[in-house]
């Protein structure tokens, strides 16, 4: 099985696998954790951020994956891998005047980049309002006539991009600026009435990975609506059919030899394993300020650990990372005049 196509995505492999194991409540042996830390350290670019592999250029997607993986490990060794000052330099180097971010120097813009940047900046406590100046407005311009968000303004609403844009706005505290009602209508409409799983876009096919990208929006919207004073929200359920999603994942998305997948007939991979499990966790666990309510389809052993709907790592790991990095001062940016204003063109 040729995996060369993932040679520029190795931190992703670390995250997909570590997150799957943490959802399955499978402990990570200390030696493995340490090996991952040392590998990710080799993926870190001397100019900041993480690359798809040793010696490659930094890119926001493996940066997101690496920081998440290190936070899952959660040891001091893991946290110490991250060079926060350089990471901030990297984020500035990909920031665009219009508020968007390119995925890497000389690379493409789309809303994933804002999420990756907001995620790592908030977890490692290097976030400043200046860094995300205009980003809110740029993300908002990605909400379209369908109610969901597109990758860049003008395009079709899409589950992956909608998750990224919405979660980024939640991190920035600006989710209320979306048309939440329109977004809610769009995302609930993405659950397939026959299959029970979610599609990525209107009139397309179901895919197990959207169990997270789409269903994961419901906890975010629940909290956003609650903060807007919505009084009629359920106290027990997300606004999607939780049992139906669990049925789709468990009955249709498992490989009998292990691992999860898009839909029957497709082959397993670590990406789908991660996101099917993440979606299963979302479908199993309802939680708000006051209570935690579970719906476990099948045996008790099917229960997964809860996942944080913004970062998609376990909530304890989020809290622990925040606590660790909040003790440190926000770094001063080093090369502002050189690296700012480097445009896509």
């Amino acid at each position, binding site marked *: 099985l040729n*995996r*060369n*196509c993932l*040679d*520029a995505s190795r931190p992703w492999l670390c995250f997909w*696998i570590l997150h799957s194991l943490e959802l399955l409540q499978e402990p990570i042996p200390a030696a493995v954790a340490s*090996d*991952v830390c*040392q*590998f990710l350290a*080799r993926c870190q670019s001397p100019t900041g951020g993480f690359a*798809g592999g*040793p*010696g*490659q*250029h930094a890119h926001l997607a493996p940066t997101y994956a690496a920081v998440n993986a290190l936070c899952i490990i959660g040891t001091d060794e893991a946290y110490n891998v991250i060079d926060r000052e350089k990471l901030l330099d990297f984020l500035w180097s990909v920031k665009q005047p219009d508020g968007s971010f390119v995925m*890497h*120097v*000389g*690379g493409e813009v789309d809303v994933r980049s804002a999420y990756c940047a907001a995620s790592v900046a908030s977890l490692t406590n290097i976030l400043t309002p200046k860094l995300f100046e205009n980003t809110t407005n740029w993300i908002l311009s990605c909400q*379209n*006539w369908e*109610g969901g968000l597109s*990758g860049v303004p*003008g*395009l*079709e*609403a*899409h589950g992956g991009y909608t998750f990224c844009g919405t979660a980024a706005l939640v991190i920035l505290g600006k989710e209320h600026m979306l048309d939440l009602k*329109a977004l*809610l*209508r769009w995302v*609930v409409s993405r*659950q397939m*009435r026959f299959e*029970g799983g979610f599609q990525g*876009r*209107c*009139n*397309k096919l179901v895919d197990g990975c959207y169990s997270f990208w789409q269903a994961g929006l419901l906890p975010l919207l629940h909290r956003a609506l609650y903060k807007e004073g*919505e*009084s*009629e929200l*359920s*106290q*027990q*359920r997300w*606004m*999607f*059919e939780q*049992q*139906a999603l669990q049925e789709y994942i468990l009955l249709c998305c498992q490989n009998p030899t292990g691992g999860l997948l898009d839909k029957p007939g497709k082959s397993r991979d670590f990406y789908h394993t991660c996101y099917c499990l993440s979606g299963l966790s979302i479908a199993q666990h309802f939680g708000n300020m*006051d*209570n*935690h*309510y*579970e719906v*476990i389809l099948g045996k*008790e052993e099917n229960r997964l650990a809860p996942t944080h709907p913004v970062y998609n790592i376990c909530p304890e790991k989020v809290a622990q990372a925040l606590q660790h990095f909040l003790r440190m001062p926000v770094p001063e940016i080093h090369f502002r005049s050189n690296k700012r204003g480097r445009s896509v*063109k």
Partner: protein
Amino acid sequence: CVTKYINRKEWADLEPVPQDDGPNPVVKIAYSEKFSDVYDYFRALLKNDEKTERAFALTADAIDLNAANYTVWHYRRVLLQALSKDLKEEMKYITNIIEEQPKNYQVWHHRRMVVEWLNDPSEELRFIADILSQDAKNYHAWQHRQWVIQEYKLWDNELEFVENLLEEDVRNNSAWNQRHFVISHTTGFSDPAVVEREIQYCLNQIRKAPHNESAWNYLKGMLQDRGLSSQPGLLERVLELKETHCSPYLLAFLFDCYEDALENITQKEKVEEEEQKETLRKALEICRLLAQEKDTIRKEYWEFLGRSLRNKYGNGALSDEPMAENPEPSISASQSQEAS
């Protein structure tokens, strides 16, 4: 079989650089000998910042082995400029690569860069049309198409292109999106003649394929800023369709019309209380119908909307339906409640 770089005389001066995975690598990829050979030399070129023809040629091999390696693509672009390479040739190259791997981010971004450098979009619409003929919903293709059209102001024939795609597949949501894109950037949706034409178009498509969510979403999406009840006669036309072309989408649209009407009634001076009560009753009836019969997968949502609407516009005496506060759905799975 091509000779490995390590065996090529003209590369003998360069020391290959093995990948530094460290002593205890994780997520190891089982590279072929060919892969390791090419990338060992790529790393050597990068290390020396070599900007030569042979470096340029090697990038094609590296891309062929992993077209997602954005570091290689970046380097290739540096070389294209440093060596003043023929960009028209590069267009041919990237055309072929995209045809082989149309779902890769890097290849489309590279094409965009070359088009920008050449300032020549003349092949783009035809090329993208060809890619779309193989996969009419390829997100990258649509993204590139919108960029080209907007950048080079190539709006003229796009509505026709969209209509042809919708003729082929009226359920192609990407095409519906493109329709919205073209109109909003040209005539806009303020012109009543345009709106009427679009409503007519939607209703015709709905008559042909009643369970096409895209058409209903487009209808709503186009009108929602002005308010669904702002369009005179629309509600009646939809109610007509309800008899013969009903769908959960039609019902949801009706609900949205009623909700919009309630939104506007309460803002007017003279409020017909009976009229408001009746509109609310109809809206709530649709919520119930959808939640319990016609769109049960979205039960939680429709029940929430019903509660919200009742809370906003109703009062205790209004509803003649018994309503539990937060009805607990019956479910065969185990349930447990814990305080957090």
